[in-house]
């Protein structure tokens, strides 16, 4: 139906976006790749030389890398677990009839709009401080010893903060999916005498599967590179206890000025993210045809 005329116009209209994104993708990535194969430290002036795979070798064999990889997986896994399970429960709750539905919904989605740096500082200080924090006060009033969150369980603390920020996202998407479940189907199952639990497992959960996949994939993309929350709370420490891959690359580049080593780490981060991205892109692509 499109004429030749509109086709060339269409190409012209797409050109700026495509050109910008090509440059934005290709140039920095090519530079990162190049840096990762040379000797290049900002503190060491003079000509650079070819380094082969030595930057990768040093980055991958650095004990901090193994810790950082583990921490990355713990943050991603922990946040996914909390947000998906919590999101399903919250979506089920918000779908029920009660007074003030709209307001409660607003309360629940609010954390998503809080600046990451604000969320991290508010939680670290006013919630988790071992003396003055709200959690410590609650613990003491129950006769328990307050937990010194960032000293005793720093990685768990960061995971909780990030999970709080992403819980609304999971809830909102799962709730949207839940509300598209046909009421008739549910009622039919009830008529047939199905119990609440079997309705959940055989009707609701399969219906949510698609939305859950979307939540998991999109969150993973963002969670692989959690950064601000770590920078303002622990600075990766104590030691490297809360350093993830993203933070390790940052520290290598902007604190140790080891451009080449950081570039190698950056390429490894890109490869990790791509493993996830392949699935996500395929899924959204399938939806385009539907």
């Amino acid at each position, binding site marked *: 139906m*499109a004429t030749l005329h509109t086709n060339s*116009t*269409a190409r012209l*209209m797409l050109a*700026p*976006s*495509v050109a910008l*994104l090509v440059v934005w*993708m290709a*140039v*920095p*990535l090519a530079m*990162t790749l190049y840096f990762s194969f040379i000797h290049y430290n900002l503190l060491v002036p003079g000509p650079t030389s070819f380094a082969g795979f030595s930057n990768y070798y040093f980055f991958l064999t650095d004990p901090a890398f193994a810790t950082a990889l583990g921490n990355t997986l713990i943050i991603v896994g922990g946040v996914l677990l909390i947000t998906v399970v919590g999101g399903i429960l919250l979506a089920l709750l918000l779908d*029920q*009839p*009660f007074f003030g*539905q709209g*307001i*409660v919904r*607003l*309360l*629940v*989605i*609010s954390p*998503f*709009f*809080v*600046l990451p*740096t*604000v969320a991290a500082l*508010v*939680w670290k200080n*006013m919630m988790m401080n071992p*003396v*003055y924090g709200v959690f410590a006060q609650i613990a003491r009033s129950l006769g328990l010893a307050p937990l010194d969150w960032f000293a005793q369980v720093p990685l768990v603390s960061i995971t909780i903060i990030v999970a709080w920020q992403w819980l609304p*996202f999971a809830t*909102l*998407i799962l709730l*949207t999916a839940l509300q598209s479940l046909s009421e008739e189907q549910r009622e039919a199952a009830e008529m047939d005498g199905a119990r609440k639990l079997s309705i959940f497992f055989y009707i609701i959960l399969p219906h949510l599967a*698609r939305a859950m996949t*979307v939540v998991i994939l*999109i969150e993973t*993309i963002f969670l*692989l*590179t959690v*950064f*601000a929350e770590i920078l*303002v*709370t622990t600075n990766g420490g104590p030691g490297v206890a809360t350093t993830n891959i*993203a933070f390790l*690359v*940052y520290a290598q580049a902007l604190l140790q000025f080891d451009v080449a080593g*950081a570039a190698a*780490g950056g390429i490894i*981060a*890109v490869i*990790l993210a791509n493993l*996830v991205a392949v699935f996500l*892109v395929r899924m*959204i692509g399938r939806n385009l045809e539907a």
Partner: protein
Amino acid sequence: MARAVPARRRWLLTILAWGVGLAIFFPILWTVLTSFKTEGEAIAVPSHVVFFDWTLENYAEVQQRSNYLRHVTNSVVISLGSTLIALLIAVPAAWAAAFAPTRRTKNLLMWMLSTKMMPPVGVLVPIYLLFRDWGLLDTLTGLTILMMLVNLPIIVWMLYTYFKEIPGDILEAARMDGARLFGEIVHVLAPMAVPGIASTMLLNIILGWNEAFWTLNLTAANAAPLSAFIASYSSPEGLFWAKLSAASTMAIAPILILGWFSQRQLVRGLTFGAVK
């Protein structure tokens, strides 16, 4: 919702839902309350929830301590500026993809989406060095351009999913009536496209406002938006909870309110149309 629900069950659900909702909202509520306390009151144990001497002095002091208004302005310039520039570039692209698709359009869109999957640390080193060499470190120009590029794929995608819902028949009809391309856009398409463009704009302003990887790495005193400025409260000597709370409250209030209005678009925008 046609089902009749016993009143008792409805009340129990109401209590449960409000309890859970307030628990999730609590850190925000606590921040707002603390912003009206004195520093001494802010670390009082046990905390006074409502019955304390309310004061506005923190809000005044936040401005005195640093040029708070400058950081607010920076946030507005970066989030709004990058969104508007990106819209100018993305609207034609999305229009073409939605109304004049070719065999390659789908692959092109998928490729655009895939650029969003690149982790920022993968290009941190070269971007930092380029910004340094071009004198763009800690400038609004640099950061606005960068945020524009970061959000461009999402903007094209969101617009595309909205435009695709505009029935093509209407365009055909307008063409039959002899409308030219320009008239087609102004009189037929624009009125139907405006809501989608507005939603896209809203969501991307929120995303731009809350971005905290590039702002933390590429700005210092001059161009720092609120996301980076608040980080200065993380140093031990900067730990004044009441002032941190006042600065935080002002930083999140406008975007929280925008966010409340954009719930629906949020789902659609962040899932690239995969969940509506």
